[in-house]
């Protein structure tokens, strides 16, 4: 499993469930799921709280609202942690880069579920 600095192993494993949900066909009422709508994901873990910062493609308001179907997945994946999803839709940032709002301490994580798969065990 890839090493991610500043993010605990437990959080990283839970993120795998969230990313898998993003790629699930039909999730949030979209045939292809949310994967076509999202671009980058960062996680910030501090003081017992977790924040996810999700940069999307430029989204119409109807699609922007669909992103929050993820909250139910987050609540299941992090049942005893205060977790909040922050969505950055470029349409609200004009010519600015919305990624500049992501806290410096946040760590970018993959948006592909395969990236979270455990490596093969070493040969014995």
């Amino acid at each position: 499993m890839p090493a991610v600095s500043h993010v605990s192993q437990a959080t990283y494993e839970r993120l795998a469930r969230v990313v898998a949900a993003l790629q699930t066909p039909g999730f949030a009422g979209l045939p292809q799921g949310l994967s076509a709508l999202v671009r980058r994901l960062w996680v910030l873990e501090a003081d017992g709280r977790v924040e996810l910062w999700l940069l999307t493609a430029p989204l119409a308001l109807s699609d922007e609202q669909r992103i929050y179907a993820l909250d139910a997945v987050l609540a299941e994946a992090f049942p005893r942690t205060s977790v909040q999803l922050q969505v950055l839709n470029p349409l609200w940032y004009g010519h600015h880069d919305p990624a500049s709002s992501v806290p410096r301490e946040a760590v970018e994580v993959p948006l592909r579920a395969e990236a979270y798969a455990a490596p093969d065990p070493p040969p014995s």
Partner: protein
Amino acid sequence: MQPRTRLHLDRAEQNRALIQAWLAVRSSEAPAPEPGCWVWGVVIAFYAALHFADAYLGEHHGFQPRDHHQRREALRQARAFQTPDAQGITPYQAYRTLENLATHARYAPDFTATRDQVHALLHGPLEHVWQAVYAALAASPTLTPRYPPAAVHPPKARVCRVPSAAEAP
């Protein structure tokens, strides 16, 4: 209806009416709000939704959230906020959209908003929350608010004017 529920609805309607008043301003009546004001319109839209939500939570669940996290969790599990509309979007998702945008509107200096975007929030997510709450409270969405839009119409001047360099302290 509990007195506090009525107060939350009144405050929500005041906020909603303020946005409606800004949107209604025509250049023939008064200069339109400065472009930067529309960012604040996003925040006002969220606080209208928040008071609608608190009216519902107090009246139906006897719950007064202490913070945004508590409110979010209560709404995520509330039946009235889980029923999707024809587009498959729930009032909870509408509320969260407003909450997220208001957070960035307050803290991100590069966040922008246009009149059309605020108009879309008013008639999209905010109306969705508004309808869900009034339906749950078994009150009509056409209920005459105690503070109709006319009561909070801005004076015939810029409602949010950026001072010129000469006026700045």
